[in-house]
């Protein structure tokens, strides 16, 4: 039963991984770029949220809405001033740009705020729900629900809306997108805005779980990356499943005494390598031909 409790508790963390993973998937599906700075940008916007909550005294949900808007704006600015000018550069340069953003936002967080962790409120207050001998915190339920809602929203946007069609068309054939009158930069900017907004929500969830600090996203990024690898870079559903799966697997590994928390990350790495070698586009991704 202890094992089951670990699994259930881990689902809260899984929701955070899922959200960051979703942010990665969005940016990738809309722009073809993996944003390695997703976590650090989210940390920064969460600090801003903290200011709104602690110094300005706004309520949680209002803050959430404002931060979503602010994050989207940050995403657009990043796209317009940094990613757009570098659009035609090789993949390596684009990857390095996101590492530059990583350092930039980490630096910004460290500049304006004290590095020691501070507490961050939860979306709901209240005692945990008990089912049998399993405790489920209310925050986990809300977090999980938000993650699933966002995932469904994204899937709907991609499949049913004109914007989603624009995303898919632009990443499929950018020239053809221009031919039919789509402005690729608008798609990319929108993709970044959505991704950063999502990251902002994930950041607020994580701050509540771990305490808000400039380094809180440290491990999350890797777990989120592993989640999208397992789930496929193209699939929102895969991202969520991957995120939850990773959280559960990490929790299981940690609770097995002969592995312990220390080895969870390296073991994760081995799993990733195996998955990638067997199915290079992830479990949910589409097969792409390539040399091996």
């Amino acid at each position, binding site marked *: 039963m202890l094992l089951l409790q670990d699994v259930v508790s881990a689902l809260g963390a899984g929701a955070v991984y899922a959200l960051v993973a979703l942010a990665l998937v969005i940016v990738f599906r809309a722009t073809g770029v993996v944003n390695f700075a997703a976590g650090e940008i989210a940390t920064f916007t969460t600090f801003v949220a903290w200011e709104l909550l602690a110094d300005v005294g706004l309520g949680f949900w209002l803050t959430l809405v404002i931060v979503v808007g602010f994050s989207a704006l940050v995403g657009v600015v990043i796209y317009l001033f940094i990613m757009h000018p*570098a659009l035609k550069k090789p993949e*390596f*340069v684009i990857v390095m740009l996101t590492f530059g953003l990583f350092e*930039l936002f980490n630096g910004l967080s460290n500049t304006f705020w004290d590095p020691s962790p501070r507490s961050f409120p939860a979306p709901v207050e209240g005692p945990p729900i008990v089912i049998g001998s399993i405790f489920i915190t209310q925050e986990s339920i809300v977090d999980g629900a938000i993650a699933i809602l966002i995932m469904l929203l994204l899937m709907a946007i991609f499949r049913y809306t004109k914007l989603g069609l624009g995303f898919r068309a632009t990443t499929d054939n950018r020239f053809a997108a221009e031919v039919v009158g789509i402005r690729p930069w608008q798609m990319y900017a929108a993709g970044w805005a959505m991704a950063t907004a999502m990251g902002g929500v994930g950041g607020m969830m994580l701050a509540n779980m771990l305490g808000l600090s400039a380094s809180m996203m440290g491990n999350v990024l890797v777990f989120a*990356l592993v989640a999208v690898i397992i789930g496929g870079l193209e699939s929102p559903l895969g991202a969520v499943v991957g995120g939850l799966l990773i959280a559960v697997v990490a929790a299981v590994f940690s609770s097995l005494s002969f592995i312990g928390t220390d080895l969870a990350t390296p073991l994760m790495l081995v799993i990733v390598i195996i998955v990638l070698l067997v199915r290079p586009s992830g479990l949910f991704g589409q097969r792409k031909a390539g*040399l091996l």
Partner: protein
Amino acid sequence: MSAANLESKSRVPAARRTAAHLRSVARRTWIPATVSVVLTLATMATTANAGFALIAGVVAAFLTSRVLGTGPQSALVGIALAGAVDAPFAYSAFNLTQILVLAIGAWGLVILGGQTGQISVAQGPFVGVGAYTTAVLSARFGVPLLATIPAAVVIGAIAGLLIGIPSSRLRGIYQVITTLAVAVSFPTLLLAIGDPVGGSTGIAMPEPFQAAQVGSVSLDPTQVMYFFALACALVVWVALSRIIKSRHGTAMRAVRQNEVVAAVNGISVSHYRITSFVLSAACAGLAGSISAMSVGAVSPDSFGMLYSIQFLVAVAVGGADSLMGGLLGAIAVFWLTTSFSGIPIGGVQVSNEVAYGLVIILALVVLEGGLWGAVSGVVESRWPKRAT
């Protein structure tokens, strides 16, 4: 001054032959370089003034390359070497050694990225492998420090092979993510192994060198360490240059350009991709060994993702296509990550990470081919042209 001066009318046939011979011999970049190094050291030894020595070296490089017609790149190399040899007398030799560590690691990425077009965020761990090999062998098994170097290189290469075999089968973003996972896992792995590698406190090592006296110049231990590192760096430079210029280099670049075309032309894509990983990790192993010896200690946190990013930034900012680019990038990265304790802007102490990030972004967005690409472009266009 030009070679034409050698051809005076009364001795035309013999002088022309000598000049032509000299020119063909001097086509090798190393002659201006050697001349400039010798002159720098000589001036330093006689005047004990680092500034004069540098000027002497720079002038020697410039003049020799003009006289022998070896071109702008050779002069730049000569100037760089003069600077390298002169630097420990003007700046902290310890810092310079760290720059060399970064440079050697970056050169590994020049091979891996610039030649075969792969991206690895695992260079930090590979350097760590070399560093820990040196640390463990010397502290736990009493192996003399310098003797641990070959072991560090070999074990680095083995690590490169182990990681390279699966990583080289991945492309683009998947390769980045996987190598990133390696980088994040490495410190954790070290902690998990625990005591044999010193656990979270790491391992400490004795000084590798003592003070030395060369002619009238006295060198302190850090300066001796620096010159040793410089010698290692030169060996690596020459070896890698040879590889890059050989047909193996051509094959690697073919793999980078278009794998299908390379394969169709009989080049074994997987062979070169894996080998470049091994080579890159071997460089990292050497760098790690030097790092361990000069710092005197190793600890798990030093060799993770952020350290890997330093090497990537070095080649991204400096230019991945050439070794010189890697060197420039290493200097830039070192300067950016160590010089500020914060920049005061409007009353706020802005962390130097912000500057680091901004410089990376600006350099990548604005520069084509990194710093070296920009610098050599400008130099090439301004170099006084000889009529040919």
